């Protein structure tokens, strides 16, 4: 609507009293039908199904996902606003934590928290007169291979992430090698793995090797989810990754700021994702400095 001239300044908002109200309980109690009768319901159940399929197809598993959970927790410990700030996590902590739905353990799941988040989008022309360095939208892509989870053939990839990313990079006129950091929708650790895999950072089954040696954490060569993400900062749908990408590009992230402060690349190009359903819908956005 900005392009059509309908609007000048667009506000995008999310808020939820998820932890302190009965909202999520009401949703869980509403599940009905054959799936629920046989014990399969809720997002964790659906993503556990997907993660299990991926374990079968390309031999991933907790030895891969521990790097995601622990790497993001390290970022959260540089972010005083993060819900899990001050609560460090080791590989042993991860591997000894309880299952929610096998193979997903508690730290494989995103947080349930109260709170809200909002961002404002306007033209680059108007941005010149405003307070902060603009986080410029360089490319966008969506792909939605949406089917019932029980009918899905894409739980282990490729998900909508592959085409969405190709479209976004093409619009931005860049390649994956130009990307300095990623802010990935991380409802579960496995979502991060399959998204980065479909984005082409590594092939199926290569995730464990790619994530090892602190690749995504502070000081890593491809920082991912630098606020702590939905696993360790807070859950606001796609606004968790999108707002953090904007803040990094603006250079307002304090101790967790990408660049010299964290011995990482300057965030000139940040790849951002959102995903919906059980890997049924995907959006990719390239944000950057110009």
């Amino acid at each position, binding site marked *: 609507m900005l392009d059509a001239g309908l609007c000048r300044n667009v506000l995008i908002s999310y808020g939820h009293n998820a932890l302190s109200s009965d909202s999520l309980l009401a949703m869980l109690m509403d599940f009905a039908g054959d799936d629920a009768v046989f014990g399969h319901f809720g997002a964790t159940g659906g993503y556990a199904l997907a993660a299990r399929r991926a374990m079968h197809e390309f031999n991933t598993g907790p030895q891969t996902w521990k790097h995601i959970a622990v790497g993001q927790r390290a970022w959260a410990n540089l972010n005083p606003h993060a819900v899990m700030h001050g609560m460090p996590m080791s590989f042993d902590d991860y591997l000894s934590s309880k299952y929610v739905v096998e193979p997903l353990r508690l730290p494989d799941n995103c947080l349930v928290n109260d709170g809200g988040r909002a961002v404002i989008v306007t033209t*680059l022309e108007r941005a010149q007169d405003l307070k902060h360095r603009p986080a410029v939208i360089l490319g966008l892509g969506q792909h939605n291979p949406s089917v019932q989870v029980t009918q899905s053939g894409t739980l282990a990839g490729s998900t909508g992430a592959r085409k969405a990313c190709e479209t976004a990079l093409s619009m931005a006129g860049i390649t994956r090698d130009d990307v300095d950091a990623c802010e990935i929708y991380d409802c579960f650790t496995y979502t991060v793995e399959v998204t980065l895999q479909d984005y082409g950072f590594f092939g199926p089954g290569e995730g464990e090797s790619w994530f090892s040696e602190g690749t995504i954490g502070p000081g890593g060569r491809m920082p991912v989810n630098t606020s702590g993400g939905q696993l360790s900062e807070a859950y606001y749908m796609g606004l968790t990754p999108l707002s953090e990408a904007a803040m990094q590009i603006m250079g307002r992230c304090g101790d967790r700021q990408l660049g010299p402060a964290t011995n990482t690349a300057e965030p000139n190009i940040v790849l951002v994702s959102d995903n919906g359903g059980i890997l049924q819908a995907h959006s990719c956005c390239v944000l950057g400095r110009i």
Partner: protein
Amino acid sequence: MNREKTYAIVGVGYTPQGRVPGRTSLSFHLEACANAIADAGLSQDDIDGLICYRHFPASSDENDLTSHLVAQHLGIEPAYLSQDAN
């Protein structure tokens, strides 16, 4: 690059987060929106588009959270209102 046809994020709004009891979902929307507007250096009269993200069902003692409700409580009349499906 056409600066009138290129778009950017120019403000971010935060709220207290974690366990914050006694608050409605609407109140978190409103606080995040107000903080984002101030963060960008805009005033609420400048906001002429509002998109509320897809959302979970309302708690038993709240109304469903729509973009209309958020706009009404912010005191704005955007030219464009929208809400993603979950």
